[in-house]
Structure formats: C-alpha cells, structure tokens
C-alpha cells in the first residue's frame, strides 16, 4: 500500500447525502465574513477609501537588482488602483472580513514573476484563509515554483482565487487545479455565480460594469476577470466565516453546489446547462 493509501479501519464514511441540502442559505446565510482573513495580492490597497475600510496588514515586495525580492511591511497604499478596486469588491460582499495586502505590482518595473512568487509565498506562510489574485504570468520558468506554492496553499487551508486569462496563451496560476479560477458573467448580481463544466475556468462571477473603488475616494465601473475573482473571494470568505472547518477542496465543492446553474434535481450530473433561478434564496 502506498504511503498515502487510506486506512481500512477507523475512518467514518463521508456523509454524501449532506450535499443535497447545500445551497446559498446553508453556505452563507447570515454570514458577514467575521473572523476570516483575506489577502489581496496586487498593487496594494488604499486603506483610506471609504468603500474599502480598514486594512489590517500591508506588505510590499521590494526588488533590487542582483538580489532576490524581499517582503517588508509598508503603509497600506495603492498608487495604481487595481488592488483597491479588488479589495472594495471583497469588502462589499463580505463586510466584516479582515483585509490585508501584499503589493507585488508597481514596484518600479512592472510586476515581475519573481515578485509575484515572493509575495505569494509570504501570503501563504502568513496563513491567510483566502488570497485573491487578479493577475497572472506567462513565464514558463516560474510555472513549477508557482504550482508548488499553490499546492502548499491548498494543503494549508488557504483558498487561492485567481482571475482567469482570456488570451489564447499559456499562463499561470489560474490554470492550476489547486486554485479557484474565475471568469466573468454579465449580470449585475454580485452574489450570483455559475459553475463552468469545462475547466480550467471553474466559476463565472460578476465581471461586467462592476462599480469599484477608485484611487482618490471615488468609484468607477470596470469590466474584466480581474473584478470577477474578488466576488468569489468574498463569497468564499462568507462561507468560511460560517463554516471555518472547510478545506479548499470542500469549499470549492460548496461553491459548486451553490452555483446558479447547479441543481441536485438535474439528470446531467447536477449541472443545468441553462441558467436557472437560484433554489433557496
């Protein structure tokens, strides 16, 4: 028997019938994100923006020529605005969540894959429950290390929510099985999302004309997968605030059962191919 083989005794059977009752009400009804730590891996977060609220911790990746990138604490700010837009969406969906920031973009040169790796490793080691990554890299030399980090997060109960890429090129980490990959749908409901039965994109969330926090205190309307991923990150935080025992595998399954196009009554593996009203809210 291989080292990872299941023991023949002492294990309780999984309560598979539990899934029939899983829907949005069970998953996040009454939840507000309390007690869940979410990290936005991006361009930083403007903590002074009224739609974003407090930022508990903030770091930045510092890159110097000839030296490996270092992570150090910094003031919660965002000169570019991309991270603030994502953070505002998470705050809207899960108002009481603890938000933190690791700035991996906008450090002099444009965000490098090395900075991304250093920032992600730091966020995983810090033990965040959810990490939002509305970014990707196409550098194949970093694929292996990124995959290792995503696996480490997966086994440490850290859910990585990553914006999918629409370009017909190979890029990472959204295409890894260990993360939750998100593309956009065009409906205005921030809590409505769909399961995609043909991965690597697994879920579609609101990503069109999304009102987001903009640098300086205002709002703007943005479209793109960058703004769909934080919706799922926020919803995942809600679920975890109510059911903190969920592993990333279980949490992804809960999201699947809560998707607007999934029904236990369907005879197509639980996936209704046409969009249907939500079952229980």
């Amino acid at each position, binding site marked *: 028997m291989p080292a990872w083989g299941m023991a023949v005794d002492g294990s309780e059977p999984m309560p598979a019938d539990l899934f029939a009752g899983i829907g949005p009400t069970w998953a996040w009804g009454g939840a507000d994100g309390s007690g869940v730590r979410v990290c936005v891996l*991006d*361009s930083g977060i403007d903590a002074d923006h009224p739609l974003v609220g407090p930022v508990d911790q903030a770091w930045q990746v510092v890159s110097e020529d000839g030296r490996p990138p270092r992570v150090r604490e910094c003031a919660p700010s965002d*000169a*570019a*605005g*991309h991270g603030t837009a994502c953070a505002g969406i998470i705050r809207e969906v899960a108002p009481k969540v603890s938000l933190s920031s690791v700035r991996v*973009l*906008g450090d*002099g*040169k*444009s*965000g490098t894959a090395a900075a991304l790796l250093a920032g992600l490793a730091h966020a995983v080691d810090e033990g965040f429950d959810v990490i939002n990554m*509305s*970014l*990707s*890299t*196409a*550098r*194949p030399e970093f694929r292996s290390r990124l995959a290792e980090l995503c696996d480490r997060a997966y086994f440490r109960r850290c859910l990585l929510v990553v*914006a999918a*890429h*629409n*370009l*017909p*090129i190979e*890029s990472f980490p959204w295409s890894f099985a260990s993360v939750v990959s998100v593309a*956009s749908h*065009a409906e205005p409901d921030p809590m409505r999302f769909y399961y995609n039965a043909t991965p690597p994109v697994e879920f579609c969330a609101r*990503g*069109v*004309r999304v009102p987001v926090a*903009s*640098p*300086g205190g*205002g709002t*703007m*309307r*943005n*479209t*793109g*997968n*960058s*703004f769909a991923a934080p919706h799922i990150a926020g919803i995942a935080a809600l679920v975890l605030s109510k059911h903190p025992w969920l592993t990333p595998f279980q949490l992804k399954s809960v999201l699947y059962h809560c998707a607007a196009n999934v029904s236990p009554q369907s005879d197509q593996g639980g996936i209704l191919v046409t969009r249907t009203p939500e079952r229980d809210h």
Partner: protein
Amino acid sequence: MSHELLSGTTEQHLLQSVVAVARHVYAAAASSIFMVSPDTGDLVFAAVAGAGEQSLVGRRFPAGTGIAGWVTMSCQTLIVDNVAETDHFARDAATSTGYLPSSIMAAPLIAGNTCIGVLEVLDRHATEPDRELDDLELLDLLATQAAVSLSLVRHRERRVETHEWGGLLARLSDLAVAQTPDPLAVELLSVCLHLLQRTTAEHSLAR
C-alpha cells in the same frame, strides 16, 4: 492609406496598422499602443489612431501609469468606464493621448511569455448594449495577433542585423588574412564568424 504610414520602420507601420484596425472595428474615437521598455518597465507611447496627439509618440511614462499600467502589471484585459469622472485616470489618459475619453478598453500584448505592450481603445462606439464581454474577447484576439506580428517583425530584423554583421566580419577576416600577420587576430575573427553562423542557424531552426 496615408503617406505618413509609408514612412518609418516596419515595426512602426505594424503598430500604426494595428491601432487603425482597432479603431475601425470598434468605431472608436481613438486607439493607441504603449510599448513596455525592457530595461526600465516604462511605458512608451508608440502609436495612435484617431483623436489624440501624434506628437506624443515616443513619450515615456513611468511603469504602472494609468490603465495601461494596470494591464501591463496584471496581464489582464479590462474595460474602465466613466473614466472622465475619475480624476486619477482622466489625468493619465489626457496626458498620454491629448484626448480625454469616458471609456478605455485595454489588452496586454504578450510575446515571448512577457507583456511587451498594451493595446488601448478609447470610447468605442457601443452599437448594442451588454456587449462588453464580446468586445473584450475581440480585443484579446486583436492583441494576440498584434503581439505575434511584432515578434515576427523583431525576429526578422534581428536576422537581418546578424546577416549584416556577418558580412562585415567576413570582409574584416579577409583583410586580416591578407594584410595582418597576427594569427591571434585572425583566429578571433574566425571565432566571431563561427558564433554568428551558429546564431543564424538557430534562428533558421526556430522559424
């Protein structure tokens, strides 16, 4: 086709063609391309079609500036509406093109596994509502085609450059053999020639 389009380098022709097509297919007020400086990460305003300032072509902006900076950093395609209501981006857009748009759509140009530039479309004419995702998909396709074309142009220019260096070295080598008794100089030139031939062969295989 304007007379202006027929001047300049092949790469500049290509960039100008890309923004002209992008502007046309979206019936947009303008389209522009920023190229990423490989040394500094600065954004270099490389081409514009429609509203905007041709004189600003060549101007550099710090890495991470505005919508183009977002796209370069995150490698994600996006649309930002009501730009004019947002001081930060309005300022960026105004200074980059000389035109103040209300909507910007932008996609990364990815070649050689890295973002080499950003294609932007300013104030596309929305003929039908709820077409944002279709518009983004088309922009991704245009950006991909532009990036592939740019790669090919640069690859070809490198090959021409290599060929020219090879010719110069061959002549120097002949001269060295005929007039220079120094065997070390002759050997050095022959090593250079060998390296150039190998580079040329690798480029041929890579095609």
